[in-house]
């Protein structure tokens, strides 16, 4: 593994203006802080997992990195260049080097295009216009992702969810990217198919030296594929550690609760060590002071409600933002 980070995200913020509509009778304009100061880096050839509940901002983080959104603040250094402030024209070469696999295999493939057209779409965008060569690339990629050459002229509706996701992967690979954003690529699939897809992603990573940002809410799969994992809560990273370390020594109460929620496939095991989370996720529109997790944290103190915890290193490569760990050190 290279010591050089391929992607370095620093202080990334993405605010959406939530106007009128759903915000109640006041119709006051609110800021939805979907991502509020997230920093991490991903080394070349590494897989970084990003986990958290729905609405915690993990997808927004990913989509900001590939610049689907304009970033509110912060920098996204890809291979040393800051993507955050680039315009569409400057971004184009990077759009070839960064590809995306989306969550929903039923909506990520245009139903009116056949497999060849789908997979060669990014090729066309990036100036590979030779139809014959593109066709050969498509056939080779189909083989790589475990589909057959005879599938090349079929339409998406003829495939199952897992096969569609393979098509998405082949499409992402067609322009030989260095970085792939996997935005919950397995959440919509059956468990048996999930494992196949994850294993395939790993094989492809080894073969092409790919770097993944892997977003998911399923912790067991993420542990399997990720080298390091970041846990997000309400737009902030609360903990980041190498995956085994995170699973064995979760430091943040939120991470502990998430891990406790993984079902154990053995009815005799009862998991009672960690109290379940109380209450619901607070609205991301509310302006919380102090630690954002305080309202649901079983260990919260007055200090947590007042003061925002610092991002501190509690072990090699193990970072956490929690007051509980300030005191221990």
């Amino acid at each position, binding site marked *: 593994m290279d010591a050089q980070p391929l992607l370095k995200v620093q202080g990334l913020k993405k605010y959406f203006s939530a106007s009128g509509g759903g915000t109640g009778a006041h119709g006051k304009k609110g800021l939805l802080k979907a991502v509020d100061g997230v920093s991490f880096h991903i080394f070349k050839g590494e897989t970084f997992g990003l986990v958290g509940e729905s609405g915690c901002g993990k997808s927004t983080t990913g989509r900001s990195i590939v610049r689907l959104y304009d970033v509110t603040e912060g920098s996204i250094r890809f291979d040393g260049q800051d993507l955050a402030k680039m315009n569409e024209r400057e971004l184009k070469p990077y759009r070839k080097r960064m590809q995306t696999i989306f969550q929903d295999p039923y*909506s990520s493939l*245009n139903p009116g295009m056949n497999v060849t057209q789908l997979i060669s779409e990014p090729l066309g*965008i990036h100036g590979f216009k030779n139809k014959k060569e593109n066709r050969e690339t498509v056939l080779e990629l189909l083989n790589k992702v475990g589909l057959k050459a005879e599938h090349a002229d079929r339409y998406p509706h003829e495939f199952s969810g897992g096969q569609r996701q393979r098509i998405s992967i082949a499409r992402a690979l067609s322009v030989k990217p260095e970085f792939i954003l996997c935005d919950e690529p397995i959440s919509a699939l059956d468990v048996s198919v999930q494992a196949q897809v994850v294993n395939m992603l790993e094989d492809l990573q080894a073969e092409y030296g790919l770097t993944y940002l892997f977003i998911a809410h399923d912790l067991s799969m993420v542990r399997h594929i990720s080298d390091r994992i970041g846990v997000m809560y309400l737009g902030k990273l609360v903990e980041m550690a190498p995956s085994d370390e995170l699973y064995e020594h979760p430091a943040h109460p939120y991470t502990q609760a998430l891990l406790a929620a993984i079902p154990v496939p053995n009815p005799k095991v009862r998991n009672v060590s960690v109290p379940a989370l109380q209450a619901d996720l607070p609205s991301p529109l509310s302006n919380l002071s102090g630690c954002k997790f305080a309202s649901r944290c079983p260990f919260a103190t007055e200090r947590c409600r007042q003061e925002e915890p610092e991002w501190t290193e509690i072990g090699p490569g193990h970072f956490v933002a929690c007051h509980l760990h300030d005191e221990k050190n």
Partner: protein
Amino acid sequence: MNSLRWRAMVGQFKHQKTGVAALIVLAVFILAAIFAFLAPYDPNRIVVMDRLQGPSSAHWFGTDDYGRDYFARALYGGRVSLSVGFLSMMISVALGTAVGTVSGYFGGKIDNILMRLVDVLMSIPSFFLMLILNAYLRPGIGTIVFIIGILSWMSISRIVRAETLSVKQREYVLYAKVSGQSTFGIIMKHIIPSIMPTIIVSASMNIASSILMESSLSFLGLGIKQPNSSWGSMLNDAQGFISDAPYMAIFPGLFILLTVLSFNFLGDIFRVAFEPKASKR
């Protein structure tokens, strides 16, 4: 259009015989319009001796007040009515699709400006505007096509905008965007093909209303000028002779009715075929 949609449409035609009837009626009218030159009489030849004859074997639809063969006039009139309907549909579909996709895709200020423009245009009684425009422009088929076209795209643009709003959230559009596809490319390659069914449905309804509009304009004497005819202008001619020669009103009226009805039926069939969830009538 892919094979799936095509199959759905064929299935729908098998299901609904009115659709087949509509297709047959339209095919007959279109062929008649194309091959109008085969008519046994010149539609503009005046034979005063033969004026106001009822339908007979010599003059299938009779003759009008100048003794012109009504069958030939109906054929040529159909040519005008159908082509005005078709051409102005092309204009309004092109305009409506362009405005709708741009408005829906970009959103924000552009959307606001374009949609308020649509609101303004829709709040003006378009028939009134047509009468005024018609007074200033040189009369002729081109003028009518232009006027109908630029005054009937607004509802299409609204429908297209709504569909664009939903399509642009789909992940294949997001994917195209993060892959570096240009905005124009996304609209042409992803958005328009995805909303094609909606466009086709509104197009077939739009032809029907364009034909009606042309007929109304011609009926008021503002459309096709003598000696040429359209179904609407033939109705206008028939006005004075409604008791002496009712057939003069019945034939063009019937043709307008059948054409408009057929296009509406077709539109309905397309709608049901393209949206499997829409209620089967």
